[in-house]
């Protein structure tokens, strides 16, 4: 909300700005008067939405500024893209599906279009998910025959598989992209609708159920692939490290036990891998007095927590192996969760910033006597308790 004086000043500023840039817009091949009117209308609309100016006074001032016609038309122009953006949201959500109907003709018609469609999205949006898996597969030489990523090795089933993965690739980011930028999608929806109609026609001709079943199937397959990659990645991490590790540690590195380690209670985990991550230090010390082996483990435990105590050479070779392994396992889980939390935190912070109370002004003088601060401000805009208040002068007295 804004007081009437604030609203009036804002409207004055808007008109002043628009009038003073008019020359630039109209002359010298500028964007022209219509764009300027659109700018003004959009600006005023945002101000009304932000409740910084009153819509009624805005309309009055708009009527004063220019005789009705030219203003109202751009207002319609403005509303169009906005309504359009909302209208097209449902279609754009359906745009996620067009790849599915589009995919249907692909196995039927030929394989040649596939690399084209697969490769086009790749450099654009879908690149992030794919190369990660592809790289890991190439790096660790995963022998899974079902997931070749080179186009030459395609079998028809794998073609659809890759296509399905690519589909999910561009499909996922787009829903996140849509809400923040309806304007960016303003033009694409029109084009995509055409593509959507085409895809639908083709999908109707073909069997529409096929892509769905393939979709689900390949989605699950995609998940399996990722899990495979992950486990193999870990195995790759384990194997070279096992070479230096003790036999007892080797027992722990089986796939089954690894999964168990993630699931078992800390006590069980401690029983498995001994003290590395779970065993509390005091327990280790108690045991350390009894057996030299456990003494080593106690040292290892200290190494894990604080890397101060030097371990014997034999153990030094062994300890670094399991410890990073555990870190890997933990890191694979925790950073994801941490990132999610961070994103949420950022959103919260953003909202806080938007609703933050803020004073923007110029200072004439700032003085301090002991902990007592005095300042004289002028020409300020305050945004406090969701109100915009302007001031010509302000005196501040603060206690530090």
């Amino acid at each position, binding site marked *: 909300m804004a007081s009437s004086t604030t609203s009036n000043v804002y409207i004055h500023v808007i008109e002043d700005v628009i009038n003073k840039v008019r020359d630039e817009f109209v002359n010298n091949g500028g964007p022209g008067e219509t764009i300027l009117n659109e700018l003004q209308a959009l600006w005023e609309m945002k101000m009304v939405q932000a409740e910084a100016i009153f819509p009624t006074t805005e309309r009055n001032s708009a009527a004063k500024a220019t005789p009705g016609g030219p203003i109202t038309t751009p207002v319609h122009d403005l509303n169009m893209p906005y309504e359009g953006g909302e209208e097209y949201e449902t279609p754009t959500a359906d745009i996620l599906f067009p790849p599915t109907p589009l995919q249907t003709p692909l196995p039927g018609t030929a394989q040649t279009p596939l690399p084209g469609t697969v490769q086009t999205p790749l450099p654009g949006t879908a690149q992030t998910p794919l190369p990660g898996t592809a790289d890991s597969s190439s790096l660790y030489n995963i022998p899974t025959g079902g997931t070749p990523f080179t186009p030459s090795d395609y079998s028809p089933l794998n073609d659809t598989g890759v296509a399905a993965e690519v589909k999910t690739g561009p499909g996922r980011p787009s829903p996140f992209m849509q809400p923040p930028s309806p304007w960016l999608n303003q033009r694409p929806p029109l084009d995509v609708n055409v593509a959507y109609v085409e895809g639908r026609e083709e999908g109707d001709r073909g069997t529409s159920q096929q892509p769905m079943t393939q979709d689900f199937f390949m989605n699950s397959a995609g998940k399996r692939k990722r899990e495979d990659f992950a486990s193999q990645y870990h195995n790759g991490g384990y194997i070279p490290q096992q070479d230096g590790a003790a036999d007892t540690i080797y027992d722990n590195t089986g796939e089954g036990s690894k999964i168990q380690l993630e699931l078992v209670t800390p006590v069980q985990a401690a029983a498995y891998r001994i003290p590395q991550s779970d065993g509390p230090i005091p327990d280790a010390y108690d045991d350390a007095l009894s057996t030299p082996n456990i003494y080593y483990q106690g040292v290892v435990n200290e190494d894990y927590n604080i890397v101060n105590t030097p371990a014997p050479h034999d153990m030094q070779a062994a300890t670094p192996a399991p410890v990073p392994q555990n870190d890997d396992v933990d890191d694979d889980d925790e950073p994801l969760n941490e990132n999610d939390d961070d994103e949420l935190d950022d959103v919260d912070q953003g909202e806080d910033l938007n609703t933050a109370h803020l*004073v923007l002004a110029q200072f004439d003088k700032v003085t301090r006597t002991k902990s007592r601060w005095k300042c004289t*401000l002028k020409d300020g805009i305050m945004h406090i308790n969701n109100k915009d208040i302007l001031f010509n002068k302000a005196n501040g007295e603060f206690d530090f």
Partner: protein
Amino acid sequence: MATFELYRRSTIGMCLTETLDEMVSNGILSPEHAIQVLVQFDKSMTEALETQVKSKVTIKGHLHTYRFCDNVWTFILQDAVFKSEECQETVNRVKIVACDSKLLTQ
């Protein structure tokens, strides 16, 4: 005439910036013209505050943080009270950003 970009962070400035962003990303406005509009906004807003606004405000509160960097004072107040002729507002935390007024007259 020197201007501050300070007021672009206000409600009216943010609305203008968003509008220009959308129009530029839509391709209907060149970035150069958008910047021209922003600069004109800096001038018009400063001028309007000088000529059109007469109100006075007193601010009291606990100074949590003060900072003076690049001729910009930043205060963060806690439990601040803003009094003007029209109203009185209390906020538990407010940030004040103030540029040096002498820079404008130079």
